[in-house]
């Protein structure tokens, strides 16, 4: 297997992009990554794109071809593949691209992610997102996505003493980080009181515990590490790329308050990278709901099970903490265009490791991690990166 590096990254502004279509935003992200890497179109040998549900959101399937076309690569007949794992589609696209380069099958590969979610009503979008859960045995009985995470939160609070304030602290922190990120959907501070005053979605989760509906796209360009310096002075090496599955329905899991897919993917990725959780300097984790970030820092092995809420409260995950989490603002404040999120995480970590994260830069960041979850935990991807 060949070592793989990131030689270029690009990301659009996240938010309600009513002026732009899916094809506009994915081309915008792709071109900024290509510009960043100095590769020419002729050198690109494959494209992978993560997209959850263009069929539901814009009534367009066959996204692989669309993206090759609007990236100007159709006449070069570059193979383009759309991959899907709900909210983990972006992370999955990155892993497919890593496998393609590591195996020696392709040299220069683009991994992109895109979702255009605001062309439909909020209700239709919620219904499309609910299809990441078990349609027949969860949604049919009235489950929504926030409801599944609310049940995780309720049990986590009961078992581990996690408090309502600790959930809020995740949102407050990520909104603070979002204020420092020019591409973030929300660049405003919030407070625990504001979270509690926002409407209840599924008890105990309020609107401000939930990631928003977002339009956005991101792209990264990969090359074999031994070719990377030709394109880029500061390539970022991918030390680990691992994926795991679990049951589709939350109720079938071994433990409702643990994402075993995260545990397995993390263990495999740390093994592959020969890195311990304590060596990570900065991480982007899947905070689709505030409780999800608490689960993530536990299941990734940064703290003991049940200690996630306390770690947030003690400031461990803040910008100046021991392990800053979601410096981009996370899914909560930066936004969550589901197919793009996994790639945006790699974009953020690349900026951090290159020292280009400006106001939210972590001092001497050398090793970073991304964690992307599909559904309520049926898929998880963990990537580890180094300078």
């Amino acid at each position, binding site marked *: 297997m060949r070592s793989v590096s990131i030689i270029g990254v690009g990301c659009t502004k996240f938010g309600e992009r009513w002026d732009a279509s899916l094809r506009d935003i994915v081309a915008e992200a792709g071109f900024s990554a290509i510009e960043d890497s100095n590769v020419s179109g002729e050198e690109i040998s494959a494209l992978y794109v993560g997209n959850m549900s263009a069929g539901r959101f814009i009534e367009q399937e066959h996204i692989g071809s669309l993206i090759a076309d609007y990236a100007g690569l159709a006449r070069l007949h570059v193979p383009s593949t759309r991959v899907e794992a709900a909210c983990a589609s972006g992370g999955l696209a990155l892993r497919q691209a890593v496998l393609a380069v590591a195996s020696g099958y392709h040299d220069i590969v683009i991994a992109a992610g895109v979702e255009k979610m605001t062309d439909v009503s909020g*209700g*239709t979008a*919620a*219904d499309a997102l*609910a299809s990441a859960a078990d349609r*027949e*045995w*969860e*949604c*049919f*009985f*009235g*489950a*929504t996505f*926030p*409801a599944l995470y*609310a*049940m*995780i939160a*309720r*049990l986590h609070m*009961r078992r581990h003493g996690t408090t309502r304030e600790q959930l809020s602290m995740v949102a407050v922190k990520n909104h603070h980080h979002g204020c420092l990120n020019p591409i973030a959907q929300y660049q405003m501070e919030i407070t625990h009181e504001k979270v509690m005053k926002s*409407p*209840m*979605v*599924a*008890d*105990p*989760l309020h609107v401000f515990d939930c990631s928003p509906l977002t339009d956005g796209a991101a792209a990264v360009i990969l090359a074999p590490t031994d070719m990377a310096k030709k394109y880029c002075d500061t390539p970022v090496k991918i030390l680990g790329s691992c994926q795991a599955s679990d049951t589709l*329905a*939350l*109720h*079938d899991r071994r433990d*409702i308050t643990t994402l075993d897919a995260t545990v397995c993917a993390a263990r495999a990725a740390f093994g592959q990278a020969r890195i311990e959780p304590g060596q990570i300097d900065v991480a982007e984790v899947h905070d689709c709901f505030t409780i999800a970030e608490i689960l993530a820092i536990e299941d990734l092995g940064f703290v003991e099970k049940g200690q996630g809420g306390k770690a947030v409260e003690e400031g461990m995950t803040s910008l100046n903490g021991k392990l800053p989490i979601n410096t981009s603002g996370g899914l909560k404040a930066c936004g969550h265009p589901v197919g793009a999120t996994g790639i945006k995480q790699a974009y953020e970590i690349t900026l951090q490791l290159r020292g280009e994260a400006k106001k939210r830069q972590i001092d001497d960041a050398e090793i970073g991690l991304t964690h992307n979850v599909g559904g309520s935990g049926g898929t998880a991807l963990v990537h580890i990166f180094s300078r």
Partner: protein
Amino acid sequence: MTDNAPRFWRAIPQRYNLIGTHCSNCNEYYFPPRNVCPNCRRSAQMEEHKFKGTGTVVSCTTIYSATEDFKRQTPYHLAIIQLDEGPRMTGQVISGPSGVKIGMKVKPVFRILGKEGERGIIYYGTKFAPLEG
């Protein structure tokens, strides 16, 4: 949901009568039914099993913001129920002002779950209610 009768019709035994499966090789129960036992895979011996429907609330929530199909019912209680035979399922719990609590014992009740508009199919199935009272 879907304007597609077969998709609902073929799940009637499970949703009306809680028919699942039991693997006689490892003695584990499954709801909804599975064709493959995740413990035994190729050596599985699957047979039909009708669940009693009594169980315990593992976790629960009250939903205030629902998808289009369930908007009319908000707020409503949703729970993960551990059936007495072992498997867990997701379902609504009908309860009075006392609400739903983790650890509460429940029993099955037959209710309307949803409708496809004014003229479409009416979906029936199982909800849960407190065992006491």
